[in-house]
């Protein structure tokens, strides 16, 4: 048995290691070391906890073994293009863990005694339990929705793969059935439908059915959705206050979790693909705050410190993403994005579009000095990062300077493009940030836009009425020639036409991203 003081000192060391983890993330050279420091801190915290008392090992060892196996398999097998889904899912697990710890602590502290312990012990625990459950539940259900939207099986009209159907239907069934079962057996049956617990039980069942039902729908919006957002937010706050007043009531606690779950679902469901970076960053922050709240429940400093570090990290990323779209967080969460009344007609904008071929592009690339590639989500979808790297190497062999311009919100999560290009062995010093590359755009001979649209739309600068007005863009239109690789002229997420495609210096190459780049590679090789 380690005495409590030593345990607490070990916790401080773990917290310091976490701080070093994040500090060393400031440079790719030190980041690997940082991650190892974090893992070491975690191992230390777990080991001293296990050595601090006599434990009933049965439950925890099984659970930890299962969790470690799932985590390891997921981490080693996930594709880099699927990173956003994985992070969304893991955020959700963090939220779920916080809810369950709070629930277990509540049962252990109150239900076992059958009454509230001395009043001093205490308001902090009650409030923290409520926050832990509330934030945790919003995080869990919100993250599931984000995961489902990223993996494209929630709120979509097209046909699903078998695994997508399996997840979608089993999640809905488990949530609905579990809530109805719990509501009836813990609320209605022992206390009668008319009692407070009975009503709460019915409420839990309804929330579960509502969540399950909403998640089966094929569209992201439904009539009364905004009303439901407001209503569930109010009900969540109300239930939270009620739990603080009556913490012994377990049915009430799970009622809070259920209604917060509804809130998490409706808040996230209507958010579209290009806004996902904001949402994932926000949920990341919530999972940290939930952990910090759990720290307040258990009076555990290492939880408080780690949780607030993660919370701060998520908030900063959220801010960066919002700024990169020139939108407020409220606008992302509650607003709608779409063409306004003044949006010019696409046919009018696109009447002078010039289409090109791989051979023409190869000729163009024959006598240039500087090429910039602007990747977007389309590169991830087409899994084109390796092909892009091959093209870059081919051009570099001809003494052409090839760089990549990365918009902060390109892709579906912060830094998504950078990871994909790193996977394809592109050195990170060739990846240029928007603010660094924009002043040099005029000296660029050829700019290749691959699967990006709104982030290169000059309308953001020229039309103050546009939905993307004021959004910082990569100034590809300043380059001597712009080649846009795209399947069709369909609009991007904002739903507005892009006059760049019809600009005098722009050429459209209509093709799938990967095939297009491969065709250019072949044509360049042939022309040699």
């Amino acid at each position, binding site marked *: 048995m380690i005495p409590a003081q030593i345990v607490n000192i070990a916790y401080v060391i773990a917290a310091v290691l*976490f701080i070093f983890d*994040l500090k060393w*993330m400031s440079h790719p*050279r030190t*980041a*690997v070391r940082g991650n190892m420091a*974090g893992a070491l801190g*975690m191992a230390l*915290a*777990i080991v001293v906890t296990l050595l601090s008392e006599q434990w*009933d090992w049965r*439950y*925890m060892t099984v*659970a*930890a073994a299962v*969790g*470690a196996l799932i*985590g*390891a398999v997921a*981490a*080693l097998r*996930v594709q880099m293009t699927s*990173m956003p889904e994985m*992070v969304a899912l893991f955020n959700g*697990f*963090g939220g*779920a*863990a*916080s809810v*369950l710890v709070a629930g*277990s602590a509540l049962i*252990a502290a109150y*239900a*076992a005694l059958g009454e509230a312990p001395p009043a001093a012990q205490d*308001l*902090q625990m009650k409030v923290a339990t409520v926050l832990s459950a509330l934030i945790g539940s919003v995080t869990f259900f919100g993250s599931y929705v984000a995961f489902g939207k990223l993996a494209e099986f929630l709120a979509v009209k097209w046909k699903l793969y078998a695994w997508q159907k399996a997840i979608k239907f089993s999640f809905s069934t488990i949530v609905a059935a579990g809530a109805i079962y719990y509501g009836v057996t813990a609320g209605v049956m022992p206390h009668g439908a008319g009692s407070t617990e009975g009503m709460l039980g019915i409420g839990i069942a309804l929330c579960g059915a509502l969540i399950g039902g909403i998640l089966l729908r094929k569209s992201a919006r439904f009539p009364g959705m905004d009303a439901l957002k407001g209503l569930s937010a109010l009900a969540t706050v109300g239930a939270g206050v009620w739990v603080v007043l009556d913490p012994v009531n377990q049915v009430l606690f799970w009622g809070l979790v259920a209604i917060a779950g509804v809130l998490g679902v409706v808040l996230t469901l209507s958010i579209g693909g290009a806004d996902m970076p904001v949402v994932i960053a926000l949920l*990341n922050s919530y*999972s940290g705050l*939930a952990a910090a709240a759990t720290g*307040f429940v258990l*009076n555990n400093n*290492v*939880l*408080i*410190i*780690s949780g*607030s570090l993660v*919370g*701060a990290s*998520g908030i900063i*990323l959220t801010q*960066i993403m919002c700024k990169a779209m020139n939108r407020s967080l409220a606008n992302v969460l509650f607003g709608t994005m779409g063409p306004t009344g003044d949006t010019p007609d696409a046919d009018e904008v696109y009447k002078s579009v010039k289409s090109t071929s791989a051979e023409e592009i190869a000729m163009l690339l024959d006598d240039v000095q500087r090429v910039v590639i602007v990747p977007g989500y389309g590169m991830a979808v087409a899994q084109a990062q390796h092909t892009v790297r091959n093209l870059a190497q081919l051009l570099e062999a001809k003494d052409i300077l090839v760089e990549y311009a990365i918009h902060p919100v390109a892709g579906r*999560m912060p*830094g998504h493009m*950078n*990871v994909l290009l*790193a*996977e394809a062995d592109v*050195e*990170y010093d060739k990846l240029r940030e928007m603010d660094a590359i924009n002043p040099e755009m005029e000296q660029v001979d050829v700019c290749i836009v691959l699967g990006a649209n709104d982030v290169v739309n000059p309308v953001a600068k020229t039309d103050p009425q546009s939905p993307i007005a004021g959004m910082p863009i990569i100034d590809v239109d300043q380059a001597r020639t712009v080649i846009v690789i795209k399947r069709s002229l369909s609009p991007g997420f904002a739903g507005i036409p892009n006059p760049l495609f019809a600009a005098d210096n722009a050429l459209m190459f209509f093709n799938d991203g990967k095939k297009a780049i491969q065709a250019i590679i072949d044509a360049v090789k042939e022309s040699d």
Partner: protein
Amino acid sequence: MEIFVTAMTIFVLAVFVGFEIITKVPPTLHTPLMSGSNAISGITIVGALVLAGSMDSSPLAKIIAAIAVMFATINVVGGFLVTHRMLAMFKKK
């Protein structure tokens, strides 16, 4: 009350430390930052272990906490591993 004030002090100071160090993370590492901080938020495992292993709490409390242990372990193991996998790919000329 005293405990709460101490906890709150720690919380506020840690948030500031977080803001200070994370603003220095370059955009190129934002994805590993997210998966890495995700792993750190798996620290709830410490709380979950205490509750799941407690000798004197009810089986229900232990089972609920054990499920929390599972989720938190997924976060910890998966988070640090996948972050390592990603960071190992970042290379310089």
